[in-house]
C-alpha cells in the first residue's frame, strides 16, 4: 500500500522542529507502523538524508519504548496496542498519516519522534519500589493474598511506562502511570509497609516534574496499550488522602 507520512522532524532539543511529508511506497499492509518507518528510513539513507529517529526495542508491545502520536491518538488508532503492534492495515490506501512525538512539558523532544521520558524514571526513584528485605521466595500460601486483590495488583503491574497516558491526556497528567505504580504495591503486603511514604514522595515528584492535573476525563485509560483502569487513579487519590487524614 502507498501512504503519505507527515512526520515531525526536529534535529535536537534546542532547535525548532517542523512537519515534513514523505511518500511511502509499497508497504505491506501487515507491516507494523515501526516497520513502515524502517522502510522509509532505508529510502532516506539511500538518498543521503537523515533517517527519522524513533524509540523502539522489543517490538512486541511489552517494553514501553515506542510511542508516537499517530493521527491524533497516542499509539495510533485502535485500543490496547503499542505503536509497534499497530499494523498498516489500520490505514487506507492513499491516507496521509500524521506522526508526532508525545507532547508534554516534562517530555522534551530529543530528536524527531524521540522524547526524554526520564521524568517518569525520577518518579520511580522517588518511591516506586520496595526497600524492605522481602527475603527469598516464600513457601506457597505462606503470605495469603485473595485472588481478586492479586489480579488487581497484576493488572496495575502490567504498566510498561510508555507515557501514552501523559500523551493522550489533555492536561499532560501522569496520574494513570503513578496510579498504576502506587496501586500495584499498595495492594500487596510487601508494599503496604512503605505505602504512605511512597505515595507522598511519588506525587511530590510528579508535581515537581511539571505534569498537569488529572481532570478525570479518562483519555488515559482509552489510550493505554495495557488498558490499565482509571480505578487505579482512584486508589492513588485514596492512598494520598490517607497520608493527610490519617
Amino acid at each position: 500500500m502507498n501512504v503519505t507520512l507527515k512526520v515531525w522532524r526536529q534535529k535536537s532539543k534546542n532547535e525548532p522542529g517542523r512537519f515534513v511529508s514523505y511518500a511511502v511506497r509499497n508497504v505491506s499492509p501487515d507491516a507494523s507502523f515501526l516497520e513502515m518507518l524502517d522502510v522509509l528510513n532505508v529510502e532516506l539513507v539511500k538518498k543521503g538524508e537523515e533517517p527519522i529517529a524513533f524509540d523502539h526495542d522489543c517490538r512486541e508491545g511489552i517494553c514501553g519504548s515506542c510511542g508516537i502520536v499517530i493521527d491524533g491518538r497516542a499509539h495510533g488508532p485502535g485500543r490496547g496496542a503499542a505503536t509497534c503492534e499497530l499494523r498498516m492495515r489500520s490505514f487506507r490506501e492513499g491516507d496521509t498519516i500524521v506522526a508526532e512525538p508525545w507532547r508534554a512539558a516534562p517530555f522534551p523532544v530529543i530528536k524527531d519522534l524521540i522524547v526524554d521520558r526520564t521524568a517518569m524514571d525520577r518518579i520511580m526513584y522517588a518511591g516506586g519500589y520496595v526497600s524492605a528485605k522481602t527475603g527469598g521466595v516464600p513457601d506457597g500460601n505462606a503470605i495469603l493474598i485473595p485472588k481478586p486483590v492479586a489480579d488487581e495488583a497484576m493488572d496495575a503491574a502490567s504498566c510498561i511506562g510508555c507515557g501514552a497516558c501523559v500523551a493522550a491526556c489533555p492536561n499532560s497528567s501522569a496520574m494513570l502511570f503513578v496510579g498504576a505504580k502506587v496501586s500495584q504495591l499498595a495492594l500487596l503486603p510487601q508494599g503496604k509497609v512503605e505505602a504512605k511514604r511512597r505515595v507522598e514522595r511519588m506525587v511530590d515528584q510528579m508535581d515537581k516534574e511539571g505534569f498537569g492535573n488529572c481532570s478525570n476525563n479518562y483519555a488515559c485509560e482509552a489510550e493505554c496499550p495495557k488498558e490499565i483502569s482509571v480505578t487505579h487513579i482512584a486508589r492513588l487519590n485514596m492512598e494520598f488522602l490517607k497520608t493527610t487524614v490519617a
Partner: protein
Amino acid sequence: MEKLIAFYNSSIGKKVTMSLTGLFLCTFLVEHLVGNMILFAGREAFDSYSEFMVANPIIRAVEYLLFASLLFHPLVGLLLWINNKRARPQKYDVYMLKENTPLASRITMLTGSLVFLFLVVHLRTFFIPLRFAEVKPSPYGLVVEAFSSAPYCAFYLVALVFLAYHLRHGFQSAFQTLGLRTKSYIGLLDAVAFIFWFIIPLGFAAMPIYFYFFQPATTAAATALGVH
C-alpha cells in the same frame, strides 16, 4: 496545619478542594430545588418558606459556606486550568481527544464558566433584591415577574443545559478524586449521578416553563406588584 498546606499545594490536594466544594454545591442544589418546588404550592406557601429561610440562623451560617464554595470552586478550577495549559506548551497538530472522551468532560471549564456567569445574573435577579432592597419584594412575585419574560426563561433554560453538562462530568469526577469511584461503586455512582445531572436540572426547568406558559401575563404583573 503544615500538613494541610502541603496537601493543598499538591495536585491531588487542589483536586480534592474542587471535589469537596463541588459536592457541597450539589447538596445545595438539592435543597434549592426542594425549596423551589414550594412555588407550585402558591404564593403564601413560598413567601413564608422564603421568610423562614432568611430568619433561620443555621441557614444563614451555611450561606457563608455556600459563598465560600462558590468562590473557591471556580478559583481553584481556574488555577488548575492554567497549570494544565502550561503542561503542554507545544500543541498537537492533530489531537483526537473526542474519540476517547465524552463531550461533557471536554467542556467542563466552558460549562462551569457559563454556569458561573448565570449565577451572577441569578443572584442579581433574586438574591440581591430579597436581601438588600429597602422594601422587600414578594419572593413569589419576583419569580413570576422574572419568568414572565421569554428571553429570561430561555436564558435560564440554556443555563440549565450547561449545568447538566457540568454535573454530568463533575459529579462522578468528584468521587473519583476522593478515591471512592472503585469498581464496586461505579454502577451506584452512575445512578446517583443521573439524578444530579438529569433530574435536578429538569426539576429547575419545570419552573420557568410553568410560570411562562401557565400564568397569564396580567396575573403575573399583578402578583409582581403585590396586588392580591
